């Protein structure tokens, strides 16, 4: 599968690359966000938008990729970029969480996931729905109702997430590319 992982200068991108390699059977192509204007989504089969520092507004240029019709998976900042693309909003989380775990209900099962975020999706973009939230109602996973687009606020690639592969498999199955 021709998968591309776009790195927003984050320090967890290669953890995500290794996790994806375990579930795709090979590693994705990893490119730097700075090179985005010189790249095209044409010919890709899966696009992954990495975590990263700051707000989605600092990362213009993803519209072409998200609207390409190719499956898109966003992690943390990547999820927030997807949400803002569809008109959603990002705000400061009242009690931000870094390097800590939390149990969430994901598709009827309890999953221990690692959280690293100061910001969260405070308003949902058009067409997106929450498929998992924490007990305070903070969105933890979003999916587009009729397009192959999904994102996780938590970090499946963290060593603190007990079954990170479950979330990659779910995305691939939802996109019909498992």
């Amino acid at each position, binding site marked *: 599968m021709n998968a591309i992982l776009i790195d927003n200068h984050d320090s967890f991108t290669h953890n995500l690359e290794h996790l994806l390699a375990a579930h795709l059977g090979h590693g994705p192509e990893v490119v730097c966000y700075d090179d985005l204007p010189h790249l095209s989504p044409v010919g890709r089969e899966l696009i992954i938008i990495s*975590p990263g520092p700051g707000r989605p507004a600092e990362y213009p240029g993803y519209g072409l990729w998200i609207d390409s019709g190719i499956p898109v998976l966003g992690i943390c900042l990547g999820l927030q970029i997807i949400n803002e693309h569809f008109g959603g909003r990002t705000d400061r989380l009242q009690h931000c969480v870094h390097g800590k775990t939390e149990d969430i209900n994901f598709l009827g099962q309890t999953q221990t996931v690692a959280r690293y975020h100061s910001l969260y999706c405070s308003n949902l973009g058009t067409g997106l729905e929450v498929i998992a939230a924490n007990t305070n109602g903070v969105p933890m996973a979003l999916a587009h109702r009729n397009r192959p687009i999904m994102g996780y606020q938590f970090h499946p690639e963290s*060593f603190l997430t007990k079954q990170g592969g479950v979330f990659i498999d779910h995305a691939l199955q939802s996109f019909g590319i498992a």
Partner: protein
Amino acid sequence: MRYNHSVSLSVQAFTALAYRLAQDGQADLFLSGSGRSDETRCVIGFIPRSELIITDRTTRQDIKDYCFGTQEPTLGFISYTYGLKLRGVKTTKTTDFPLGHLKQYGAVLEHDLSTGRGEIHGPDENAARKLAALATAQLDMPPLFASSPAKQVQQSLTQEAYESGVRKTLEAIRDGHTYQLNLSLKFSRTAKDMDMPGLAMDFWQRHPAPFYAFFNSGTHTILSTSPERFLRVTDGEVLSQPIKGTLHFKQYTPELEHKVTSSAKESAELSMIVDLVRNDISQNCEYGSVRVEGHKSTFIVDNLVQMYSNVHGRLREDSTVIDLLLDAFPGGSITGCPKRRSMELIETLEPHTRDVYCGSFVIIRGKRDMDSSIAIRTCWHDSRTDTFSFHAGSGIVVDSAPRKEYRETMAKAHKFLALGKS
């Protein structure tokens, strides 16, 4: 022709030899101490025969060519400032400290403190014979360190300014720019004729730690008393041991270790850096090989309980230890996370340069063998200016209290600050 000679040295005899060699000015010392029972190997390079001084123009290939161009081990350091260049972080600060300095030697002594056995080898027979003769001679033990009279210590940030820096960091965390950021202070004072060999051996005996380095670099004599390993590679097996989570004590009790490991704040600090280190070694490790073992292990150094983890991986066949080192440099435990944005913030928050502080001391033995430390608890003397300098810092996370972080920073600086006060 290589020269090989075995020696047997008691701890006392080795200490006397190390002191004599430190005084000699032609030796660089990488010493383990009793800080961790599994770190007992010491390496001393004697009579440098070549060197590579890293500058803005030095390329990765230059470093590989130097280190891998011979079978001899390479000893030296790379500075945090070189890390700014590697990570593409702009700085407006100037420094005349070398960006890095690597050396190869006429002879090398490798000694294991636990067995008392040592091996001298090297390409220069004269150097090796001279070192062997010194190793079997009756040498004087280092005297008690006689510090120069107490002098006014300059701090790069006052307590108020440091705490203000912590508050600015907390705002940057709430805005999502960083999860954790290491904020440091620089201390300096004039110290004419500072006895650096005496200080090195005095500290090594009174404040043992696994990754001591005593290194001559031009007019700088550097002493690192680091307890932290950055990256070790043994036949391609990678190990990093990041430290986070600190508790200062006056009287040790076993409950102190539980207090650190059960703290949600300290655990989160370590976990963030473990994820960062996993990422940084993953760039050059085989898929599926990166794993964490012994998460939240503890050890004691300098009246501090410190927490660490073991992050393992397998170096890719097409990578070398230089690729691993430079792609992972500087160590995440002294930048923060995400690394590049945290380093950009550090540049705005710290008025000083870090130079070798938060860089790494390295022993490179080949393409798949290396050991390196994080150069914390590090000081140096510059003979041009008769200045003695050191730094200390603390990792700031969202639930950090500015006053408490300042106190932790001063606790880490204590053994250097106390010099000249006794």
